[in-house]
Structures are given as structure tokens and as C-alpha cells.
């Protein structure tokens, strides 16, 4: 029986090629996206869970409080003394390490120099994470201050091989280090990844500030290993008031948080976790399940719509003594077979999609064919999909009355009542419409932010890090660049134009009131030519100039700063800035320094020789590639120990909206897929129903109906469903997207044009899809159909 059923199923699939294609195509896409997103969820879920001690690792976090004791902010950075202090006071803390932020450090050997992502950590870092050492060992690899641990691939980058223990490395042009260990490359789904690891001791030796015990500054991550079965809540209770004991002025509380939860639940409000990356995971998993559901609905719809052609078979089988179970089993076999073929296709699709997906989300997922877990996953998805898509048709079709099935009196459109199948179509299209609205809204928001004037001319602007010999020879660099004709202006500054890196408060000016003390000003330090280089527009006054010696203690204010400070005739006034008297010599137009979706805060540009970045305006008359080549030659010549890193301000600014762009791409992709699969289904469904109405159409034709009238007649019932879907979906879409937009301080509005556009779009697509079928039937020769009936 099983074999015969299988054979019949195959013949059926072969006979109804269009139907088969629609089902397999839709299901394969749905399954591929489902598998992809499950892999992604798995990847995110395993974040920081790969280590032997993962379950016992915690991070110290700080809750800041305001005067009333309410928690205003939660940060993951702690003081340099936190670790020692906690270890001394609490026996629960077994080991721990301070960890610095990831930072590109200059690594050089005789042959090679390059920058790699480095962290400074305490020696016990190796007790927290059991890295796999290829050479060297975890016991003493970081005991000597001048040790460095490399990952396998960074060892290859530096030396071209991995067998490099005891080799020497010059670090930041400041210290001689010895390689004490090479470890296997780290997975990408860990929070504290790195390419090279150096000791905190070295950090203290190279810099002044880390060494001095300090309860005021929060600069380092503190990771802790606690004993098994430590009650975290009880421990956190013990930590209440802990910082205050050491630092009476402190308005903050330290608490510990499991490292394994940090990635997915790392966002805090009022000191409580309120999500984090888990939101993105949920969003993507929801989307993929939606797509799979749409594909399953196609299967259900098409299978039940084939009622008429299967009716006879069902009827005959019933008279031969087939039980309902036999028939359910048979239809389930068909469903599972389609799902099986679709799974095979989806694995191929998955292979094509994975690299692109990894690139988009900047992650690293591979589908391991040897892992039994993956095959269990696939089997799970296979069975679930087969059952979901097969269940309704099986029960529906097997329940036919034999007589009616044989007499062909089964019909499924009676009056205006909604059948289950119609409800399924409405669900499909509602989902698609929501995705269309989302796509348009996200696009509109990105455009809205992009169209905001940035305040300077980012095109043709590049930046390089200010480092090494470039400090001493800045003026030489500047004159060489200008004389080379590749650049028309060069300036130094304390930070990049593209990213906010410093704020200050406590400016004092005449006429201020008490609350003004709390205004945070963005601040950037520079010397000469900064405005000229960036093309920031000057509204009043002038830029810093070498002609005025007093300009070395001058300051520029932004338009917003001027407004908040309520200064009349600001140019020439003196304000107090960080304890120094500063002369206001100019007012400049606001620039977008931070995330462009935020309200622009006030800003000051102060004269000071503090510099991390050199900004260069390229000569617009020269070719871009030539200028960049010239500039890097000049830099290389002046600062030979450092690799040249040229960045375009334009592309740095682009990166700010990366998250939104990813979301936009995903919405586009999934929206497109949802619409495509829904339309496949609609195509199949309209094909069945119009074929069933062939006789009616023929009779109407004889009575004088035109092709147009017939097409309208045939399309009407479907268009009705689409309209219903629109009515249902638009409020939902509005609700979802309104909530999404609330994230942004500056946001576009969702107006009715978005809804109209989406509605028109979906109706147009649906009409085209249906017309492919209705036209065929409406053009049919009446006599051919009637002859056979």
C-alpha cells in the first residue's frame, strides 16, 4: 500500500507540474529561510556559552542613580580597583580579570607591521576562558608583563606561520614583547573576542592612568568567576552600597550579571534587563516562521482546491474499502514527499544564502553536514512542515462523502461565507502587506535621516589616525600634502568628524541659570584649518587663525549652543570652559556628529593641541585614486613604522545607519519572498477555481459576455480577499511601525500615502497574478468546454 501510494504521489506531482512547482518552490524558500534563521538563532543563543566555565562567569555592572535614588543608567564598565576589591571582600569570587576595550594596536616585526585588535587583560583571564593552546600554555602565558598571546590567524598574519612561541614583537612602537602562546582562532559569537592578548601590567607600564587606584572612573570590564551554585541574587544583595563604602561620593551600585546573558539581554532600563539582541533574533525567527507558514498555506490551499480532480479517486477508494485513516495516510505521504523534495532544494538554497547572510549581519554561520544536531534539526523541521501542510488537506479530503465525490457535486464557493481556504489567503496577504508597509516605512526613515543636512561636506573628505611620527612632524606632513596637490586642506582634531567621542558640562557664561550647569556639550579640540577642511559653515565671526596669537585660547560655539546659552552678540564674549577663560570668536552651523537619528546637542570646538585624527580634504581637480596614492606615499615616508589607514568620512557616516540598513534589507528580502510565495499560491488557486468555472464561463460567453466582463467576474472573489487582507493588515502594520519609529528621536511620520502605496502595490500584483489565469479561461472557446460536459 505504502509503495503504491508513494508511486501515485510521484505520478500526481509529475502530472500537475505547475502545482508541484508552486508547492516545491514556495516550500523550499520557506524552509531555507526557516533553516537559516534557526541556525542564526542557534548562533546567537550560544553566545559566550562555549567555555567550560561559562555558567560561572559574571560581569560586574554599574547602575548610576540620580539624587532621588532612581536608577538612570546602567553601564558595563567598572573601576580599575573593582576586581581586587571584590576578590578581597568576597570569598565567592574565585577568579577574575579586568579587560580593556578592543583596540587596534600596532604590531611590528622586522619584516612586517600591522594593526591587530588587542585587549589588555589580567593573567587570570586564562582561568576564566579555556582557550585551546596550540603552543604555550594557559598556566603561565600571561605571567610576564611583556607577554603576548596570538590567535592562530593573527600569528599567520604577522609571521606567516603558527609555530612562533618565543618570537619577539614590537608593540605600539613602545615595548618589546615575547610571544608566549598561540591559541586556536576564537568563534565569532563571543563578547570578549580579540586577535592579540597582552597583560594589564604592560598597560600600566605604558600608561600612567590605569595604575592609580581610582573609584571615580569607569574604564574597564570586570569579569568574575564565581563558585558553583552561588546564589546570584543573594550575592547582589550583599553588593548593595558596596561602592559607597569605598567612595562616599558615589551615586552608583555595582551588581554582577551572567556573562552568558549579556549578549542577548544586555540592554537595561531602570537597572533591569529589558532585552537586547534577543529582539533581533525574535524578529528574524518570527519572519522566517511567517514565510514558512505562507508556504504551508499554499500547500493546504492548493491541495484542498484540487477537490474536484481528487474527488473521484477518494470516492472510488472509499467504495473499495479504504478507511478514512488509509486516505489520511495517503495524503500525508504526498505532503511529506513534497516537503522532502523541498528540503533537499532548500539545503541547496541555504548554501547559496549563507555567505550573503553572514556578510549582511557580520556573523559567521556554517552549516555543518557532519553534525547530527543539524540533521535532527532538519528532520524536526521536515516533520513539522509535513504535518502542518498535510494535516488540513488530509482531513478535509478524506472526509468527503463517496457519493458526492463521485457525482462531482462538491463545490466550495457558496455565497459570501468565508471558507477556511479564503481565511488562509487573507492571512498570507496580510503578512505580505505588513512587510510592504514595514519596508516602505524603514526606507522613508532612512531617507529622512539621510536627507538631514549634515552640516559639512563629507564628500571628498578622508581621515587618518594621528599617531607615531605624525605628532612631531604634523606641520611637515601638512605642507607636503598641500604641495603635492593631492590635498587642498589639512587639519588635526581630537576625534573623527564621523563619530562623537567626547562631551563636557559645566560651561559658565554670563546670564546662565542653575539648570544650565547640567547641559552636556559635545566637544572637539583642534588647531587651525578645521572649519576650512571640513567645510563647516561659519555663521558669525571667524575660524582660529595663526594671525591672532590669542586664538590659542579661543572657542567656537554651534548654533544650538548659542540658542541654549541665550547669548546676544556672542562673538567677542568670554566664557569659562573647563576652568579656563575662553574667547568666543565664531558661531558655526550645527553638524551631525553622533547618530543622525538623534536630536543635535550643543557643541563647542575648542583650540587645543590634543589630536587623534588628521582630516584631509582631497583636491577635487585630481583623480581620487591618484590623490589617495600620493597621500599614502607621503604618510608612509614620514611615519614608516605604521601602516597607512585611510578612511572616507562618507563611508564612516554610512555605517551609522548600519542596523537600519540591515533591517531594511531584511524587510525587503522577506517582504519580497512573502509576496512571491503568496502570489504563487494565488496563481495556483485561481488556476483551480477558474478551471472549475469553465462551464459557467462558456455559458456566459454564449449569452454574450465580453472577455473583460468575464475577467472581472473571475477576479472579483479574489480581489475581495485581498481587500479584506488590506483592511486587516494596515492597522497592524501601523501599530508595529509606529512602535519601531519610537526608537528614533528624529523620525518620519507614517502617513496615509504609505498605506495607499502598499495597497495599490499588492492589489496590482494580485490582479496581474490572477489575470494570468482568468485571461486564459475567458478566451476559451465555449464549444470545447460544453462539448465534454
Amino acid at each position, binding site marked *: 500500500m505504502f509503495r503504491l501510494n508513494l508511486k*501515485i504521489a510521484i*505520478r500526481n506531482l509529475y502530472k500537475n507540474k505547475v502545482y508541484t512547482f508552486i508547492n516545491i518552490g514556495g516550500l523550499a524558500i520557506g524552509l531555507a529561510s526557516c533553516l537559516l534563521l534557526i541556525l542564526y538563532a542557534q548562533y546567537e543563543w550560544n553566545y559566550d556559552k562555549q567555555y567550560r566555565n561559562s555558567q560561572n562567569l559574571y560581569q560586574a555592572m554599574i547602575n548610576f542613580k540620580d539624587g532621588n535614588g532612581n536608577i538612570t543608567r546602567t553601564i558595563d564598565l567598572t573601576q580599575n580597583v573593582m576586581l581586587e576589591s571584590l576578590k578581597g571582600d568576597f570569598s565567592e569570587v574565585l577568579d577574575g580579570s579586568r579587560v580593556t576595550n578592543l583596540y587596534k594596536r600596532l604590531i611590528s616585526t622586522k619584516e612586517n607591521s600591522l594593526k591587530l585588535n588587542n585587549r589588555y587583560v589580567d593573567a587570570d583571564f586564562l582561568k576564566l576562558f579555556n582557550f585551546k593552546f596550540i603552543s604555550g600554555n594557559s598556566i603561565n602565558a600571561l605571567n610576564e608583563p611583556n607577554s603576548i598571546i596570538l590567535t592562530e590567524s593573527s600569528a599567520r598574519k604577522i609571521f606567516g606561520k603558527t609555530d612562533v612561541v618565543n618570537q619577539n614583537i614590537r608593540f605600539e612602537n613602545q615595548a618589546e614583547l615575547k610571544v608566549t602562546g598561540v591559541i586556536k582562532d576564537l568563534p565569532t559569537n563571543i563578547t570578549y573576542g580579540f586577535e592579540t592578548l597582552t597583560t594589564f601590567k604592560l598597560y600600566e607600564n605604558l600608561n600612567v592612568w590605569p595604575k592609580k587606584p581610582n573609584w571615580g572612573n569607569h574604564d574597564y570590564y570586570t569579569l568574575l568567576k564565581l563558585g558553583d551554585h552561588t546564589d546570584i541574587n543573594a550575592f547582589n544583595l550583599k553588593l548593595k552600597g558596596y561602592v559607597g563604602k569605598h567612595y562616599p561620593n558615589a551615586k552608583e551600585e555595582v551588581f554582577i550579571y551572567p556573562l552568558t546573558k549579556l549578549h542577548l539581554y544586555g540592554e537595561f532600563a531602570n537597572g533591569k534587563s529589558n532585552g537586547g539582541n534577543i529582539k533581533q533574533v525574535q524578529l528574524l525567527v518570527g519572519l522566517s516562521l511567517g514565510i514558512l507558514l505562507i508556504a504551508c498555506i499554499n500547500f493546504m490551499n492548493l491541495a484542498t482546491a484540487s477537490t474536484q480532480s481528487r474527488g*473521484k479517486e477518494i470516492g472510488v*477508494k472509499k467504495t*473499495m*474499502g479504504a*478507511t478514512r485513516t488509509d486516505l489520511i495516510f495517503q495524503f500525508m505521504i504526498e505532503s511529506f514527499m513534497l516537503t522532502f523534495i523541498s528540503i533537499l532544494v532548500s539545503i541547496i538554497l541555504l548554501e547559496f544564502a549563507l555567505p550573503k547572510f553572514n556578510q549582511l549581519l557580520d556573523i559567521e554561520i556554517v552549516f555543518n553536514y557532519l553534525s547530527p544536531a543539524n540533521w535532527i534539526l532538519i528532520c524536526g523541521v521536515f516533520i513539522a512542515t509535513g504535518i502542518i501542510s498535510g494535516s488540513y488537506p488530509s482531513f478535509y479530503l478524506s472526509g468527503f462523502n463517496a457519493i458526492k465525490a*463521485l457525482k462531482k457535486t462538491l463545490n466550495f464557493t457558496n455565497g459570501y461565507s468565508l471558507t477556511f481556504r479564503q481565511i488562509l489567503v487573507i492571512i498570507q496577504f496580510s503578512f505580505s502587506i505588513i512587510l510592504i508597509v514595514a519596508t516602505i516605512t524603514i526606507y522613508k526613515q532612512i531617507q529622512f535621516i539621510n536627507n538631514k543636512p549634515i552640516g559639512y561636506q563629507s564628500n571628498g573628505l578622508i581621515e587618518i589616525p594621528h599617531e607615531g611620527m605624525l605628532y612631531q612632524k604634523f606641520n611637515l606632513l601638512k605642507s607636503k600634502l598641500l604641495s603635492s596637490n593631492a590635498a587642498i586642506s589639512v587639519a588635526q582634531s581630537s576625534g573623527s568628524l564621523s563619530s562623537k567621542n567626547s562631551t563636557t558640562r559645566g560651561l559658565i557664561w554670563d546670564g546662565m541659570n542653575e539648570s544650565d550647569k547640567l547641559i552636556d556639550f559635545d566637544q572637539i579640540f583642534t588647531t587651525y584649518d578645521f572649519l576650512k577642511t571640513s567645510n563647516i559653515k561659519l555663521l558669525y565671526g571667524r575660524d582660529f587663525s595663526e594671525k591672532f596669537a590669542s586664538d590659542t585660547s579661543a572657542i567656537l560655539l554651534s548654533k544650538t549652543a548659542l540658542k541654549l546659552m541665550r547669548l546676544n552678540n556672542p562673538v567677542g564674549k568670554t566664557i569659562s570652559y573647563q576652568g579656563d577663560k575662553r574667547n568666543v570668536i565664531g558661531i558655526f552651523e550645527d553638524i551631525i556628529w553622533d547618530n543622525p537619528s538623534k536630536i543635535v546637542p550643543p557643541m563647542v570646538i575648542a583650540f587645543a593641541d590634543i589630536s587623534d585624527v588628521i582630516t584631509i580634504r582631497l583636491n577635487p581637480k585630481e583623480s581620487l585614486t591618484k590623490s589617495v596614492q600620493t597621500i599614502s606615499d607621503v604618510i608612509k615616508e614620514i611615519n614608516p613604522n605604521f601602516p597607512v589607514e585611510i578612511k572616507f568620512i562618507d563611508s564612516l557616516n554610512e555605517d551609522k545607519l548600519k542596523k537600519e540598513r540591515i533591517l531594511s534589507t531584511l524587510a525587503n528580502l522577506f517582504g519580497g519572498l512573502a509576496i512571491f510565495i503568496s502570489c504563487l499560491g494565488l496563481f495556483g488557486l485561481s488556476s483551480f477555481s477558474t478551471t472549475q468555472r469553465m462551464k459557467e464561463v462558456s455559458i456566459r460567453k454564449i449569452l454574450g459576455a465580453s472577455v473583460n466582463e468575464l475577467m472581472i467576474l473571475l477576479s472579483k472573489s479574489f480581489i475581495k480577499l485581498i481587500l479584506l487582507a488590506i483592511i486587516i493588515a494596515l492597522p497592524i502594520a501601523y501599530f508595529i511601525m509606529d512602535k519601531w519609529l519610537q526608537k528614533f528621536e528624529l523620525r518620519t511620520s507614517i502617513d496615509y500615502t504609505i498605506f495607499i502605496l502598499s495597497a495599490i502595490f499588492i492589489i496590482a500584483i494580485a490582479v496581474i497574478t490572477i489575470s494570468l489565469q482568468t485571461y486564459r479561461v475567458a478566451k476559451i472557446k465555449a464549444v470545447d468546454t460544453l462539448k465534454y460536459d
Partner: protein
Amino acid sequence: MIELKNIEKYYSSKGIKHYVLRHVTTTIKQGEFVSIMGPSGAGKSTLLNILGMLEEPTYGDYEFMGENVTSLNERKRIELYRNHIGFVFQAYHLIDEMTVYENIEAPLLYKKVGSSERASRIANLLDRFNIVAKKDLFPNQLSGGQQQLVGIARALAAQPSIILADEPTGNLQSAQAEEIMQLFQKLNKEDGITIIQVTHSEKNAEYGSRILNIADGVVKDDIRVENVLK
């Protein structure tokens, strides 16, 4: 074998009963070959459907092999289909996706007949109906008469005690129809299979042993064929 007592079938719409069958009472014995005749809409097919338990009478008793089947549960009914009843349809109703061989095999699979037994029975039927060469063809590759032969072979595969045929030759040309009728007669005489057919044709009815004439849902005549022929 079959006993009908006071069978009635009606549909009510808007409070009015539309009778299809009224007071049908008859007995059909093992080995009979009965033709149900009558004008269109007389209720012939409904009667056959009730006999085949495809429809339930609104009123009355129906005993099949000594068992009251008026309200038989699904499982028991399916048992009867598997073991005792074979259906032959006017439009053949072969399953398009199955070959001739598979069509004949299907009821045996439901009956859970072992594979070697299955093979020999099918071979036997193919042989007997002279369609061995056609066994791998699909229904749409056969003529109407051949399709009906397959339909009958299928009905016989499960070795039923009764065959219910709804206008088995209605779609066939007269030569083919004659062939089918001779086959029925032979099955009835040689194998002792009870046959009940619905037919319009007097000529076809003459192959049987008894004729039930129905008009407006009521059995008008119940005659032996040999009496007619005399």
C-alpha cells in the same frame, strides 16, 4: 441475502418532503441477477446507492446477509466493502494515476491480501478478461469498453459476493455493451455472484434473472425474466 423493508428516502426543503423512494420492500437472494429499471428520476440510482450503503435511507430496515445495516458504523461498513461488495460505475471511475494493474490491485491492498496471493489473483483476472497486454497502461490509454473491463476486474478482485453496477454500459457502444453483459451473465451463472444493475436498456435487463421496475420511487413490477421471455 438482501432484505429491504419499507425503505423510504426523501429530502425536505422548506417543510415539503420530496420523496425519492417510497415503501420499497423486496428480497434479493444469493445468486440472483437483478436489473433495476425505470424512467429518469425514478429513484433507481438512489436505491442502488442505498443497497451499496453509500446513502442511508430516511426510514425503513435494510438487512445485508442477515445483519441490519441501516445505521451501520463506518468500520463495519468498510469491512463489507472490503469483503462482500464490488462496485461498477457508468463512468468506470478508474483512478487515472494508476495503471491497469494497480487499479485492480488497489482493493486487495485495502483488504490486506498477501503479495503472492495478490499477484496470482490479478494475473488470473487479467488473463480472464484478456487484458494482460494492457496491464501497464493508464486508463486514458484504453477504450471505454476496455476501461469498463478493468472496472469489473477491479470489482471482482476482492472476490465479492455481490456486484452493484450503476448503468455499467451507459457510456459504451452496443457491441462493447453486449460483451460486458455477457460477462456479467457468466459471472452470475458460473461463479454464483449476485449482481444488481441499474439499466435503461431492456436488452441489458434480459441478461438478468429478475427485473425491478421503479417509477416515482415506488416498485411497480417485480418480474422474472424467463416469464417475460416466454
